């Protein structure tokens, strides 16, 4: 099986198929990442498409300084952060009062609880929001989170616990 870097090199030399293979390889993990906090599969698919469109442009200048997997994961986290921030504003401005969550295989109550939880996560400060997202969606170890955010492992742990405490407070209300 060809490695990510080989596929990227082929893509940089003009092979669209190499890019499609790369998308195929990471589609389920990327889609799964977004599906955990979006209301619908269409929304998750839309976010995944936006990520791969960004990758299409970015990979042409990719310098192989980091692994593609890490690069993609960082892009996913940033995209989720933007999405949750948008959710926060939507909630503040009451723009999504009409829509109801339509999670597949979940009961309506579960769906509402999930929505309530992600709405609460959206209100957290940026760093806490990113750490919670990484822990919930990928179960990322603290060391990986710390490297990605450029902070110490202890700082990541403390932020996570602060975030959980804040969430408990918010949900109690």
């Amino acid at each position: 099986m060809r490695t990510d870097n080989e596929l990227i090199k082929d893509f940089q030399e003009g092979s669209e198929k190499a890019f499609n293979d790369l998308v195929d390889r990471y589609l389920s993990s990327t889609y799964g990442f977004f599906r955990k906090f979006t209301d619908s599969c269409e929304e998750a698919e839309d976010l995944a498409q936006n990520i791969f469109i960004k990758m299409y442009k970015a990979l042409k200048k990719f310098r192989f300084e980091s692994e593609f997997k890490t690069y993609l994961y960082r892009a996913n986290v940033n995209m989720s952060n933007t999405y949750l921030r948008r959710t926060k504003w939507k909630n503040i401005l009451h723009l999504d009062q009409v829509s109801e969550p339509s999670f597949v295989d979940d009961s309506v109550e579960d769906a509402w609880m999930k929505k309530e939880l992600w709405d609460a996560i959206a209100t957290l400060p940026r760093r806490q929001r990113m750490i919670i997202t990484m822990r919930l969606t990928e179960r990322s170890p603290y060391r990986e989170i710390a490297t990605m955010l450029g902070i110490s492992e202890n700082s990541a742990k403390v932020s996570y616990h602060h975030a959980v405490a804040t969430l408990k407070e918010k949900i109690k209300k």
Partner: protein
Amino acid sequence: MNLDKQFKKIQNEDIENIDSQSFIVNLHRKRVENDARSARFISGIASFCILVVFGFLTLNQLAYDPGSFASTDLIPYEEMDTETESYIVDLADYLIDTSNDIWETLDFFDKINFDNVIASNYGDINE
């Protein structure tokens, strides 16, 4: 809501599969649409900038103030200065009063070649 339970539920959530072939087709269609949209936007901005620059350069190239091209024959119109105008008006009044004949007054202005006086206000176009 039990937060820990909810966390575990999200972490263990089964995600439905996605059809990669149709995803890739849609991805490239969306990418091409995005590219076309941004190309249209950039060409629109570029056209606007070119129009502004050419418009500015054209206005700067005009020999006369563009406001002077108000008439359709494109002869630059310049107003008679106030002093000459009041002199001519007074002269015309005086001549009409004294001669009691407007046609005689006009004939007089013809004789003194007053048209040339007016034309001289247009610059050298009649010369």
